[in-house]
């Protein structure tokens, strides 16, 4: 923009705002108002000075790499010091503290903007695609920690992430037992049976057009129904142990798989099918060599949808009766006992399991449907 008159300044609104907030917090620190009860004046001055410096430098015309480094040090360095200043100082943060946090966050935003902007696309883009969301997630944790401890949010409402982390470390045996009960037994077994039967029924229905025509509208409708409601019935039928939960998972995963496989099997074009006919291919040859590969993106779509549904089904089914182990059981009882850190530990476990499950399926999909246009560079 200013090619004819190069200037040393490249102002941006995040860094400008951060500069103002950091200045305000610096004044607050100079006025000898401590940031928190346990944070001494020099630490406060250090934070504010770090932020003012980083914000000022970010408004200069720098290379993206240098600016990123400065912003990362300024933003996360300040956040580290600020969180460190919260030791034993529950709910005592002052205005200066919040202004400093705000400035650090704005610098974090600027960092994300610089990283996702132009100029850093070559070669490092895959790394950037990982770093940028990581920064975002890290800032959510920082805010969560600072808000709960700095503002003194009662523990029973929202425990800070550090407390949840400690609880995860302390209760690994309970978490492992719940994981085996809910995920390994109920979810995995139910998921495999549900997806496999859905797939097989779709293959059979596809052999006879009549069934496919009848099943597709019904399956589509059933997929929109609140199938989770069958959980109490399954508990009555199959008892309290994992069998009833696996049954819920089977019912919940069956229909999405059925519908998606049927849709996928119908996705081949006339040209390809005609070509197969000129080869004199049998029904099963056409199925194995043409229609199943074409249906794979649809099948993986169902597998991904089902991965979340299966976890939900198994955990919710445990609300209706369970032996004294399992993630759903733990969540409902620990909520009642106000042990919110244990509840959050289970949620973290569920989130990790869900993300890993999904991620594994996505990797597998890439390997199986490598030919699909959406993976072309």
């Amino acid at each position: 923009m200013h090619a004819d008159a190069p200037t040393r300044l490249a102002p941006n609104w995040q860094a400008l705002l951060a500069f103002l907030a950091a200045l305000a917090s610096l004044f607050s620190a100079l006025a000898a108002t401590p940031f928190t009860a346990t944070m001494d004046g020099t630490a406060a001055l250090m934070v504010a000075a770090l932020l003012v410096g980083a914000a000022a430098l970010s408004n200069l015309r720098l290379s993206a790499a240098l600016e990123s480094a400065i912003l990362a040090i300024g933003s996360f360095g300040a956040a580290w010091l600020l969180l460190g200043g919260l030791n034993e100082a529950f709910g005592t943060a002052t205005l200066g503290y919040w202004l400093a946090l705000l400035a650090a966050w704005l610098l974090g935003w600027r960092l994300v903007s610089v990283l996702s902007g132009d100029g850093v696309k070559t070669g490092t883009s895959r790394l950037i695609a990982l770093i940028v969301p990581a920064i975002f997630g890290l800032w959510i944790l920082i805010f969560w920690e600072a808000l709960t401890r700095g503002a003194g949010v009662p523990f029973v409402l929202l425990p800070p992430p550090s407390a949840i982390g400690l609880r995860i470390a302390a209760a690994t045996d309970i978490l492992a037992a719940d994981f085996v009960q809910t995920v390994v037994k109920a979810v995995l077994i139910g998921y495999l049976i549900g997806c496999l039967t859905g797939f097989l029924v779709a293959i059979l229905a596809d052999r006879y057009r009549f069934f496919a025509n009848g099943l597709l509208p019904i399956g589509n409708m059933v997929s929109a129904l609140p199938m989770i409601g069958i959980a109490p019935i399954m508990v009555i039928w199959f008892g309290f142990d994992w069998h009833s939960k696996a049954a819920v998972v089977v019912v919940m995963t069956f229909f999405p798989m059925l519908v998606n496989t049927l849709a996928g099997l119908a996705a081949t074009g006339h040209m390809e099918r005609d070509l197969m006919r000129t080869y004199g291919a049998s029904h099963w040859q056409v199925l194995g060599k043409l229609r199943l590969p074409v249906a794979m993106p649809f099948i993986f779509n169902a597998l991904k949808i089902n991965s979340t549904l299966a976890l939900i089904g198994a955990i919710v089914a445990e609300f209706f009766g369970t032996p004294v182990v399992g993630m759903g059981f733990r969540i409902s009882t620990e909520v009642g006992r106000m042990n919110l850190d244990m509840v959050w530990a289970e949620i973290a476990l569920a989130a990790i399991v869900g993300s890993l499950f999904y991620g594994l399926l996505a990797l597998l999909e890439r390997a199986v449907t490598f030919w699909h246009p959406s993976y072309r560079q």
Partner: protein
Amino acid sequence: MSAAASHLTGRFIPVFSILLVILFAWYIGAVALNAPFQHDLEKRTGNVTTGVAFIEKTLSQPKPTMPAPHQVAQALWKGTFGVKPWSRRSLVYHSWVTLSATLLGFAMGTLLGVVIAISIVHVPALDKSFLPWIITSQTIPILAVAPMIIVLLAAIGVTGLLPKALISTYLSFFPVAVGMVKGLRSPDILHLDLMRTYSATAAQTLWKLRIPASVPFFFASIKVAIAASLIGAIVGELPTGAVAGIGSKLLAGSYYSQTIDIFAALIAGSICAILLVTLVDVVGRFTHRQMGGKA
């Protein structure tokens, strides 16, 4: 063959016959599942029946393992038309409680989803940093934490409709956000370039090009979102001992092993789901036609 006739053979007859098969299988299943209890009962009372009389008895138990379709239909009929719609025993009342939470949550979720999609399309930093987390957010089984969220919100004084609606919001914003990002990016590069030659602002491009282009995506996503909202509202009613709503009917039924009531509540919920999805479908088609699309 006329279009109507081909529709009949192509869809109606297969669907109808499969529904008949399901109904038949349901009766067989009901007899098979209820028979052991009936055998037991008759052995104890000494009043042993066989054949048709026995089958009739298995299909008319007060608390069957598997209720027969006509028992569920009776319960459904009684709950819908047999009592005043505002009474506590009415399924219409319970459905309305759940539906109101569903609709509130759906409205909030759709709004949130659209706002997120518009910001993601306009701010590259959000696209890179926020979109991956939106996808991750859905791998968290939120329904599993629904009880905690409801208890927490009750602790800070938020009760009634809103907590359930918030669960629905969480479930419904995702399909809308993802679908709308796709939809807002769907305009052709040529059309976007044309807007640039007009020196249109970002807001003008949004209103006159991106939003009209995203309408089909919008309706496809809210169809998924409204079904998810209903599930969210039902599960939201499970934990806190909610006194009204389809979820509370399910829970009460499971406490007292009243399988007929559970099935009736389940079917009431399914009817709600079908109504909602059909409504969205009809509005979508109407909008499509108003915008000049081909039927």
